[in-house]
């Protein structure tokens, strides 16, 4: 039922990065319709060969991010009414990642950079050690908590022009993760994290354009996290390790 609303004119990216083009579909408009609803409608009613990725539909899994009218969005929580231009909607794959087909991108480079930024917990104790209490109100923990709700959707990575310009740049998500671990008192290799993020593709590449923070659907602040890493590396360079 389209509730008397005009149909949406949707153009969707089809094919691979080099040999692809936008294809036009007409999609019935509904109330409270999300961009993911639109894509699902096309795949179920117009062209079953359309490839895209999603899982939870409630903004938790981070798999449905796409470029909607030129801006990266989590499509399951993006209402058509908020982003539609007239009746037009242009949906493409995320920028800065290789396109596998249609709207599905290869996330490998994105996750490889999490590992390269030492965005993995470094345990230093065994099960035989007593559990270390972490005070939730401690300054360090408060800083770490601000960045831990990342869902790995790669919206920040796709919005970042520094990533576009330098394929080796670790990107906002990986650096944000490194910053949360750097502020985790249980982490056993905080120096190693600073080493990993201060190399040639590290935090000092960031031009502070702030697109990551602007577009993060979970309202995290990778720009602030990267600035924190910059500060920490500068402190270390001057022998003022905190």
């Amino acid at each position, binding site marked *: 039922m389209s509730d008397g609303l005009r149909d949406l004119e949707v153009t969707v990216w089809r094919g691979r990065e080099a040999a692809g083009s936008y294809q036009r579909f007409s999609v019935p408009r509904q109330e409270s319709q999300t961009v993911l609803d639109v894509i699902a409608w096309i795949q179920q009613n117009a062209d079953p060969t359309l490839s895209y990725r999603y899982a939870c539909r409630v903004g938790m899994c981070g798999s449905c991010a796409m470029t909607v*009218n*030129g*801006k*990266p969005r989590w499509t399951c929580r993006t209402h058509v009414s908020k982003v539609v231009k007239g009746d037009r909607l242009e949906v493409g794959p995320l*920028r800065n990642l290789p396109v596998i087909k249609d709207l599905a991108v290869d996330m490998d480079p994105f996750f490889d950079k999490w590992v390269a930024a030492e965005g993995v917990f470094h345990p230093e104790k065994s099960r035989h050690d007593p559990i270390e209490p972490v005070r939730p109100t401690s300054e360090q923990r408060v800083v770490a908590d601000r960045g831990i709700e990342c869902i790995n959707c790669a919206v920040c990575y796709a*919005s970042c*022009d520094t990533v576009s310009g330098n394929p080796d740049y670790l990107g906002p998500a990986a650096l944000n993760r490194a910053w949360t671990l750097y502020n985790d008192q249980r982490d056993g290799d905080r120096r190693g994290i600073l080493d990993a993020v201060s190399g040639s593709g590290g935090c000092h590449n960031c*031009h*502070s*354009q*702030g*697109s990551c923070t*602007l*577009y993060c659907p979970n309202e995290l*602040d990778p*720009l*602030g996290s990267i*600035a*924190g890493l*910059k*500060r920490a590396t*500068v402190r270390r360079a001057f022998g003022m390790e905190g």
Partner: protein
Amino acid sequence: MKIRPHRQHPLWFAFILHRLSGLALALFLPLHFYVMALALNAPEKLDGFLHWAEAPLVKFAEFGLVFLLAVHIFGGLRLLALELLPWSGRQKTLAATAVSLSFLLSVGFFLRAI
């Protein structure tokens, strides 16, 4: 030239303004040094230039130059604060403040010049 949709936000404009003002100042500096050098090498040429520099259009261009210089300084101070001082989430406000101060300074210069 159309600015791509994902770039249409204040901090990206602050970024591009900083870059372009830096570039314009880099282009201006050699010219500036050349004119300064005239004082030593060819004083009569310098006098001719200074007379030309009194023209209203040149005064207006100087206003632009002062704005570029001011916006590059204040924008640079914002970036230094962003990277070295405790984090502040009010980056949009700080960028707007940098541009406002630059306008204040350059308009003040312009009003004195005319």
